[in-house]
C-alpha cells in the first residue's frame, strides 16, 4: 500500500478503519453487556428438553433397558434407545473420518459416558429425573485403555460391528482394534540417512489426551416443522454448512429445507467441529414429536464425551552429523482414537497434517508413520486450537531437536540456527512434500535472543546450577515452529468430498454501506471486526458501515467453517477477491460517470480520480448510488459479488518463543518468570486482535502444558472431568506475556496474510516443556511428559535427588 502523501489522505485512510488499524472489536459491546445470543438463550414455543442416559461402564454389553418408570413420570414425552432409531437407520452414523459411530449404544457400550438412551421432557429438571429412572442392565466386558495393549494379539475385540472388515477407510486393517496405518515421506532415503549418520537419537514422546473445554458446552435446538417439512436447527457449530449437508444426507430432507444456524459461540477450539450423537438425537426427537427440542451438555458431559484432542504416542528419531546438522527425521506414532474414529481431519489425511513434523529445519530425508487404534475411551482427536495434528508435529520435532542438542552438548539456540531453512530457500519443499510459502527464521531468532539477552540468561542459569543451596532450578525453553494452516487446496483437502474452499458474498447498498456474508463462523476471533477492515481497505467503505454476517446457512454462501486457522487464509482471500470484483465494476461505473476511459482513472483510498486532475473524482459512495440509479449501458445494475476461493497452497506462519522458568525444589511448582512470543503471520490486519489472540493462545498453551490432563483408571473411568480438576487457568495463574513480531507476507495470498490465532497454542506448549526439561538438563534429563504440574515435577526432582 502506498503511504498517503498528504494529511488529508491520511485522515481519509484512517477514517475507513481499514487493514493495519487496531480497530476496537465490534463484538464486544454485546458480549460485555450480556446481550450475546447463545444456543441456550434460544427459546421456542412448545420447546421440549432432552437429556441423555449414559453408560457408567467403559466396556459392557447391554442386557436390558427398562423405560417404564421413566415414562411414568409426568412431563416425560419419550424415551428412545438404539432399538427405536433402528427403523430409521439412525442408530449409527458415519463419522468425518470414514468410520461409523453409535448414535445410541447398539447392544454394547464402548466408553464411559457413552450415549445409551435419550429422554424428552417438558423441562430439564424432569428430564434429569427421568434419566435416573431409566434402568439399564449391563454385563461387564474387559476394558482396553492402553493403545499398545489394544494391538496385542489376544486383546479383547472392541468393535464387534466391524468383524471381518479388513479394509478401513484408509487401507488395510491388521488387527480388530487397528483403524489405519498412514505414512508420508521416503522410508528408504531416511533409512539411508540414518545408516550413514555419525549421531542418532531416539525417544518416546507422549502427547497426552486433553480436551478443548470451551466455556460454552455443545448443544442445539432442533425444530422440525411437520407442515412445511422444514428443519431449522440452532447449533454450536464451527462448520454449519457441513452440518447442513450431513443432516440432509442422514435425514433425507432436501438440503434446501434444512437450515442450520450457529448463533454466538462461546469458544470452539475444535470441540465444535464434529457432529455428535446429541445433535442427531435432538433432531430425530423433533421430527418424531413435531416440537422443538433443546439439548445442552453439562460440563462433565462436555469433558467426558465430545471431542478430546491429541493422545499421540510418538517414537521420534533424528540422525545428524557430529556438529549437529540434521540429516534425517523419522517417527512412528500410535494414535489413540478412542472407541470410534471421529477425528475431524481433511478426508484424505487420517493423521491430519502431522507430516509438517520436519518443522523449521532443512532436513533432506524424513519419514513418518501413524497407526490409529481403538480403545475404550470417548471418540474425538480434534484440532484443539491448531491446524490438524500440527501441535503434535511441532511438539515432536522441537523435543527431538532439544534431545539432540543435549546429546551433542550444543546450545539450543545454536542447533536451531545451524538447521533452519534459510530465507533464500523459500519457497521451500519439505521432505514430506509441503511447499513452504515464505519465512525468515534467522532474523526472528536473533530478535528474540537479543530481546532477552540470551547469553546473560544462560550465565545466570550456570550460576544457579553451581549453587547447591539454590531453592530453585532455572530453565530456559526455546522453540521455533512452522505451522501449516489455511486448509486447503481442494486438490488435496476435502471433507466428505466437499473441497475445503471458502466463500464471501458482498453487497454494497445504494447509500454506500455494505453487508458481507461468509462461510466461516466467528467464535472469539473477531471476524465481524477484521473482515470489515479488509473490505474497507479494498473498497474505500468505512468499516463502521459494513455488516458482517456468518453462521446462517440460509443466507451465507457455502463454506467449510472456522478451525485450523483457515478463516483469514481462505475466507480472508475470498473477501479480498469478492471486493476486487466489485472494485472492477466500480471502476467501470466511475469511468462512465466521469466520461473517461477506465485506464484514465487512479484509485485513491475511497475514490477513483481522473489521472492528473484531482478535482475530477467519484467516491465509492457516489458510485454505489449510481450503480442502482444510472448504471452504464450494458452493465447490470447493482453492486455485489460472490467469490469462492480455492487456495493454491497452505500458508506457513512461524514464530520463535522463549520461556524462562524457576522451579521450586521443595514443592515442584513452576513459576513462569518470562515468556516472549515472536510471531510472523505475514500481513497484519488488526494488530490489537492479533495481540489478543496470541494472549489467548498462550494462556491455553500454558493450561495444556502445565495442568490439563484426562487420566483414566484401569476400568476406563475418566478421573477429573470437572473444572475442579481440569485445569482452566484464571488471571491469577496466567503468566505475563510479552509479544513481538516480524512480517513476512505470504506470496500466494491476495493480502499476504497467513493466520495467527493457533500459532501461540502450537508454539507455546513445547516451549513450556522445553523450559521445564531444561531446568533438569544438567541432571541428565532430556524429556518429561506433560502436564508439568507441581506433583509430576516434584517426582522428577525426587528421582534426580534434587528435591529439597
Amino acid at each position: 500500500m502506498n503511504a498517503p502523501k498528504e494529511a488529508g489522505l491520511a485522515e481519509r485512510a484512517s477514517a475507513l478503519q481499514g487493514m493495519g488499524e487496531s480497530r476496537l472489536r465490534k463484538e464486544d459491546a454485546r458480549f460485555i453487556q450480556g446481550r450475546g445470543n447463545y444456543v441456550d438463550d434460544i427459546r421456542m414455543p412448545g420447546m421440549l428438553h432432552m437429556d441423555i442416559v449414559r453408560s457408567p461402564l467403559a466396556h459392557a454389553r447391554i442386557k436390558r433397558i427398562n423405560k417404564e418408570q421413566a415414562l411414568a413420570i409426568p412431563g416425560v414425552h419419550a424415551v428412545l434407545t438404539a432399538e427405536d432409531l433402528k427403523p430409521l437407520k439412525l442408530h449409527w452414523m458415519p463419522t468425518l473420518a470414514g468410520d461409523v459411530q453409535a448414535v445410541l449404544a447398539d447392544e454394547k457400550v464402548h466408553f464411559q459416558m457413552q450415549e445409551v438412551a435419550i429422554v424428552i421432557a417438558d423441562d430439564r429438571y424432569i428430564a434429569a429425573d427421568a434419566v435416573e429412572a431409566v434402568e439399564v442392565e449391563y454385563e461387564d466386558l474387559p476394558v482396553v485403555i492402553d493403545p499398545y495393549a489394544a494391538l496385542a494379539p489376544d486383546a479383547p475385540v472392541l468393535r464387534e460391528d466391524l468383524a471381518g472388515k479388513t479394509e478401513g477407510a484408509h487401507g488395510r486393517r491388521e488387527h480388530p482394534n487397528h483403524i489405519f496405518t498412514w505414512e508420508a515421506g521416503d522410508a528408504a532415503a531416511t533409512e539411508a540417512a540414518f545408516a550413514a549418520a555419525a549421531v542418532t537419537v531416539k525417544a518416546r514422546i507422549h502427547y497426552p489426551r486433553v480436551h478443548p473445554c470451551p466455556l460454552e458446552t455443545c448443544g442445539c435446538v432442533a425444530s422440525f416443522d411437520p407442515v412445511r417439512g422444514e428443519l431449522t436447527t440452532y447449533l454450536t457449530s464451527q462448520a454449519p454448512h457441513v452440518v447442513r449437508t450431513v443432516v440432509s444426507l442422514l435425514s433425507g430432507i432436501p438440503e434446501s429445507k434444512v437450515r442450520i444456524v450457529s448463533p454466538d459461540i462461546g469458544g470452539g477450539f475444535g470441540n465444535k467441529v464434529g457432529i455428535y450423537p446429541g445433535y442427531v438425537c435432538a433432531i430425530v426427537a423433533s421430527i418424531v414429536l413435531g416440537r422443538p427440542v433443546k439439548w445442552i451438555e453439562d460440563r462433565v458431559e462436555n469433558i467426558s464425551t465430545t471431542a478430546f484432542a491429541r493422545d499421540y504416542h510418538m517414537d521420534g528419531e533424528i540422525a545428524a552429523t557430529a556438529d549437529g546438522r540434521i540429516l534425517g527425521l523419522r517417527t512412528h506414532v500410535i494414535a489413540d482414537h478412542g472407541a470410534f474414529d471421529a477425528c475431524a481431519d481433511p478426508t484424505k489425511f487420517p493423521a491430519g497434517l502431522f507430516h509438517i513434523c520436519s518443522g523449521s529445519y532443512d532436513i533432506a530425508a524424513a519419514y513418518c508413520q501413524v497407526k490409529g487404534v481403538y480403545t475404550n475411551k470417548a471418540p474425538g482427536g480434534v484440532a484443539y486450537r491448531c491446524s490438524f495434528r500440527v501441535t503434535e508435529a511441532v511438539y515432536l520435532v522441537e523435543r527431538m531437536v532439544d534431545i539432540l542438542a543435549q546429546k551433542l552438548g550444543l546450545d539450543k539456540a545454536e542447533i536451531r540456527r545451524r538447521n533452519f531453512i534459510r530465507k533464500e530457500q523459500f519457497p521451500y519443499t519439505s521432505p514430506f512434500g509441503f511447499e513452504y510459502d515464505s519465512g525468515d527464521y534467522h532474523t526472528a531468532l536473533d530478535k528474540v535472543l537479543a530481546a532477552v539477552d540470551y547469553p546473560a540468561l544462560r550465565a545466570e542459569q550456570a550460576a544457579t546450577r553451581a549453587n547447591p543451596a539454590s531453592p530453585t532450578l532455572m530453565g530456559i525453553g526455546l522453540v521455533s515452529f512452522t505451522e501449516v494452516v489455511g486448509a486447503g487446496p481442494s486438490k488435496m483437502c476435502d471433507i466428505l468430498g466437499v473441497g475445503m474452499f471458502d466463500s464471501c458474498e458482498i453487497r454494497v447498498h445504494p447509500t454506500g454501506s455494505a453487508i458481507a456474508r461468509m462461510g466461516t463462523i466467528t467464535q472469539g476471533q473477531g471476524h465481524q471486526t477484521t473482515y470489515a477492515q479488509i473490505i474497507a481497505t479494498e473498497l474505500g467503505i468505512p468499516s463502521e458501515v459494513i455488516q458482517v454476517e456468518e453462521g446462517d446457512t440460509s443466507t451465507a454462501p457455502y463454506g467449510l467453517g472456522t478451525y485450523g486457522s483457515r478463516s483469514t487464509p481462505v475466507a480472508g482471500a475470498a473477501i479480498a477477491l469478492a471486493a476486487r470484483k466489485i472494485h472492477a465494476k466500480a471502476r467501470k461505473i466511475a469511468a462512465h460517470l466521469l466520461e473517461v476511459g477506465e485506464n484514465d482513472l487512479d484509485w485513491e483510498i475511497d475514490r477513483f480520480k481522473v489521472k492528473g486532475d484531482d478535482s475530477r473524482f467519484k467516491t465509492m459512495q457516489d458510485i454505489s448510488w449510481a450503480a442502482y440509479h444510472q448504471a452504464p449501458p450494458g452493465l447490470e445494475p447493482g453492486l455485489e459479488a460472490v467469490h469462492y476461493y480455492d487456495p493454491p497452497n497452505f500458508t506457513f506462519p512461524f514464530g520463535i518463543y522463549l520461556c524462562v522458568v524457576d522451579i521450586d525444589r521443595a514443592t515442584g511448582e513452576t513459576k513462569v518468570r518470562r515468556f516472549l512470543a515472536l510471531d510472523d503471520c505475514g500481513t497484519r490486519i488488526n494488530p490489537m486482535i492479533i495481540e489478543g489472540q496470541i494472549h489467548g493462545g498462550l494462556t491455553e498453551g500454558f493450561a495444556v502444558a502445565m495442568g490439563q490432563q484426562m487420566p483414566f483408571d484401569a476400568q476406563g473411568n475418566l478421573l477429573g472431568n470437572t473444572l475442579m480438576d481440569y485445569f482452566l487457568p484464571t488471571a491469577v495463574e496466567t503468566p505475563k506475556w510479552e509479544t513481538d513480531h516480524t512480517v513476512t507476507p505470504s506470496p500466494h495470498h491476495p493480502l499476504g496474510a497467513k493466520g495467527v490465532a493457533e500459532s501461540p497454542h502450537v508454539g507455546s506448549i513445547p516451549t513450556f516443556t522445553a523450559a521445564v526439561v531444561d531446568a533438569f538438563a544438567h541432571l541428565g534429563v532430556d524429556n518429561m511428559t506433560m502436564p508439568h504440574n507441581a506433583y509430576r515435577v516434584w517426582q522428577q526432582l525426587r528421582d534426580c535427588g534434587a528435591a529439597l
Partner: protein
Amino acid sequence: MIPPEFDYHAPRSVAEAIHLLGELGPDAKLLAGGHSLLPMMKLRFAQPTHLIDLNRIDDLRGIHEEGDQLVIGAMTVENDLIDSPLLRARLPLLPEVARQIADPQVRNRGTIGGDIVHGDPGNDHPAIALALDASLVLAGPGGERTLPADGFFLGTYMTQMAEDEILVRIRVPAFAPRTGYAYHKLKRKTGDWATAAAAVVLRLDGGRVSHVRIALTNVAPMALRAHAAEALLLGQALDAARIDQAAAAVMAICAPADDLRGDAEYKTAMAGCMFRRALAQAAARCA
C-alpha cells in the same frame, strides 16, 4: 448437574430451625452458603428432600468480642471474616486463611460454620479451629452445649455434632501480644482445595517456644493437630535440628488419600514443607 426435587423452608429463628430439623428428620439438611451442599446435590451424591435455609436468621451472623474471646456467628461469610477490623486486630490468622479459600464468589456466600461442620478434610477452617483452640457452640432440642474443636472432627463428613443440632457460634480466644501465626497452603490453582496445608500459632519467650499449635489440612480423613511436633518444640529454641525433628513428626501423622493432587508420598512431603514455611513465618511474626 440438576438435583432431584426438594422442599424449601426458611425459618426466621434458631428455635424454629431446630423445630423443623426435628420434625422433618434425617431427610432434611440445613442450608448455609450452599457451596458444599449444592454441588453434592447437583451430582446427586446428596439427595435431601427438605432444605432448611439458615440465611434469614440474623442472630447467626456477625463477630463481636466478649472479653478475651471473639464470638463469631456460624453464618458469618468468608468475606466478612476478611473485612473484619476486629479479627484483623485480634485474630489476624482468620482473615488470612479466609483469603486463601475458594474464590470471591464462593467467599461471598460460604460460611465459617458450614465450612467447619461439613467435615470435609479439604476444608481449611477445621485445622484453623484446632490451631486457634476454638470452641463450637451447638444448639439442639435440649438447649446449647459447647465442644472444643480438638476432638470434634471424627473422619470424612463425620463430627461430634448430632443430626438434630445446629452450630450457632464459634468462640475463639484472641491472640495474646506477640503471637506469631501463619497458614501455608499448597494448591494447584486459585479456588482449589489444599494439596496440603499447615497452620502454626506460636509464641516465643527468651528465644524458646512458650506456646505452639500446629494443625494440618487435607492430609488425613480429617483435620489433624500435630501433638507430637508441638511437644518437640515446646520449651525449645527453634534450631535446624529441632525443626527437622518436628517436621518429621508432622509427616509421621499424615495419612492422605491418593488423588490427582498427588499420592500419599507427595502430600506427606508437602505437609512437611508447608509446616516448615508456616513455622518460619510465624516465628518471624513473633517479634
